[in-house]
């Protein structure tokens, strides 16, 4: 193990937020990092995942469990290769359930709580408004962290429109509750004295949406506003947890142009917000032999000299078949070589590489078992 490897990062931190563009294998990397921590670092480790692939979820024993935390059996953890030093727990984030819990916690009284939970707009709003998925993931993270039940929590972030949305979600939530707009919106129903500023807004909104719909929305936000103090204080706490010294971010990406530009953008966004970037994990990296000059030259010769090589090989009865195979091997190698070269360039073009850059190879098979994850864990440490 190197001095500044993944192990050291995981040992030094209490919260790791795994983020990056969509479709790069964030959940798999979060789970593999969990294995590294539980097996080689020790302590109680929780991987909080948002939307795992079904077979991965099954492998982790995460079926329809809502917010429940489940322990991965020690014997499954390292595939029998190591003696695990700690425990690995996994949990899935159930957005709806988490919102309900939050409302229960912050509602001033039972009547308000029931009114909100029963409001027809509630589900619609929690599903859509101000990045509620992003917020709830960070909120859950905060809650579990504050409970002190785990030494390390690794959280896999939800697929966002933008990878940085969740960073700002707690702040946006606080802003939303404190906003003038929310007050405007609810003013006519709180007081007969219309604030003059909200008049043009109402004039336009009434003509477009109709008063009834507007009142439905206002009713809902009026209820929601009763939770203002609790929500804002909480959102600020969540924000503080993200900024803490013992919190670090791991960015996962694949080496294609689109993902890498998002990855760069994300790294900049972390720096702007003074959040700590712990490592970058590059997933699906093609083997380096694809870009070796000697191998490429051998591949070209296989294609060019296919007829001659076929007669040297003396394989089977059909020389045309063997020739075809040799040409196909050659062509395929050179094609992948183009992609591998592109990957290498993108890796060198990374603007602000952090101290730790781990690479995980392009694996042919899907990860569908804890053993598979343990393999990835080994690659992360390499």
């Amino acid at each position, binding site marked *: 193990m190197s001095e500044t490897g993944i192990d050291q990062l995981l040992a030094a931190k209490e919260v790791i937020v795994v983020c990056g563009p969509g479709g790069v294998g964030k959940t798999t990397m979060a789970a593999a990092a969990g294995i590294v921590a539980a097996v080689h670092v020790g302590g109680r480790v929780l991987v909080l995942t948002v939307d795992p692939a079904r077979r991965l979820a099954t492998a982790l024993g995460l079926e329809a469990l809502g917010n429940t935390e489940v322990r991965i059996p020690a014997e499954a953890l390292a595939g029998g290769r190591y003696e695990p030093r700690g425990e690995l727990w996994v949990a899935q984030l159930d957005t709806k359930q988490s919102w309900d819990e939050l409302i229960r916690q912050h509602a001033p009284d039972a009547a308000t709580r029931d009114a909100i939970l029963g409001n027809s707009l509630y589900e619609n709003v929690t599903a859509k408004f101000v990045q509620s998925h992003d917020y709830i993931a960070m909120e859950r993270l905060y809650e579990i962290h504050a409970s002190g039940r785990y030494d390390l929590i690794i959280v896999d972030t939800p697929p966002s429109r933008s990878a940085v949305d969740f960073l700002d979600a707690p702040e946006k939530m606080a802003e939303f509750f404190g906003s003038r707009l929310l007050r405007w919106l609810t003013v006519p129903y709180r007081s007969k004295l219309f604030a003059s500023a909200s008049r043009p807004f109402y004039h336009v909104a009434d*003509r477009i949406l109709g008063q009834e719909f507007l009142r439905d929305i206002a009713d809902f936000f009026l209820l929601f506003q009763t939770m203002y103090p609790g929500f804002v204080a909480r959102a600020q706490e969540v924000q503080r947890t993200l900024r803490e010294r013992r919190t670090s971010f791991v960015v996962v990406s694949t080496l294609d142009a689109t993902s890498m530009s998002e990855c760069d953008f994300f790294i900049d966004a972390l720096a702007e917000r003074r959040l700590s970037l712990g490592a970058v994990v590059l997933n699906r990296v093609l083997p380096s032999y694809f870009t070796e000059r000697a191998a490429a030259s051998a591949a070209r010769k296989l294609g060019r000299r296919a007829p001659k090589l076929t007669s040297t090989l003396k394989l089977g009865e059909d020389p045309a078949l063997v020739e075809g195979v040799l040409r196909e091997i050659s062509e395929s190698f050179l094609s992948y070589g183009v992609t591998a070269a592109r990957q290498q360039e993108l890796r060198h073009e990374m603007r602000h590489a952090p101290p730790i850059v781990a690479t995980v190879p392009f694996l042919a098979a899907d990860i569908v078992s804890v053993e598979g994850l343990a393999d990835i864990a080994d690659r992360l440490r390499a």
Partner: protein
Amino acid sequence: MSLLDRRLLFVTGKGGVGKTSIAAGLALLASSHGRRTLLCDVDARGAVAAAFETGPLGFAAEELAPRLHAMAMSTEESLKEYLRLNLRLPLVTRLGPIARSFDFVAAAAPGVREILVVGKLAYEVRENHYDLVVVDAPATGHVVGQLASPSAIHDLVHVGLVRDQTQWIVDLLRDPAATGTVIVAVPEEMPVTETIELTQRLEAETDVDLAAVVVNRVLPELFGTREEEVFRELLKDGPTKKLRDAVGGPVRHVLAGADLAVRLRRSRTSHIARLRQELPPRTPMMYVPEMFSRAQGIRATRMIADAIGDEL
């Protein structure tokens, strides 16, 4: 009926599958077939601009190539345009703050932001500004809400301008000759699962027709059964050594590379099979190959357009 004969196509898919590339390729293909085409970047994060190597796009469409126009969506601009066209507000300058706060309400109120997007796109179709509008739509999680918004608003709002004006949008979206969705997937577990779930949700929650499923980044098949046997022979020590002696280089790596290519193709084939099996019968499918190319931007977009053209 050909995909390009429709009027309004929403291209969606899970993050990272190449949704924007396919939308850009479709738009370029349509324009090169003589159709006046508008490509709209709904997320407005610059991906469409990158696909054509052009500067940032605005709400006002600009012509990027003959007959190919592109714009970036903005709900605030869309609201302003709507108000200008419908309310004839005298003080357009004072609209700014109202529009901004409205945008904020729209973020919270179900369907309001979505309908500003869909409404603008439908308007471009209705006014015949273009033959075809291709939408680089939000990722799978958000697109259903967007497509369902006109009906949802129609049901929620009982009076007002919006009520009067949602009917024609609903009619346009519901017409399969005019409107369709194109779902982009790659042959991997999560994107395939999401595609199948999305077709079910679109069917259950919207009236929009599924126009096609595009499987992107399909890896080439290297060998048939008999060729595969020959390849397995070559991987054995004897033949490998003979090849190495003959070409004088690391043949081992070349063979390993082909072996990886075979295994990657095989694991992806099973995902394509599952996709085909679980999609509604007779869903039109298109396959776009993995581009082993250094091409970026417009050259890459052209390659995608050609590949889609081959499938039509």
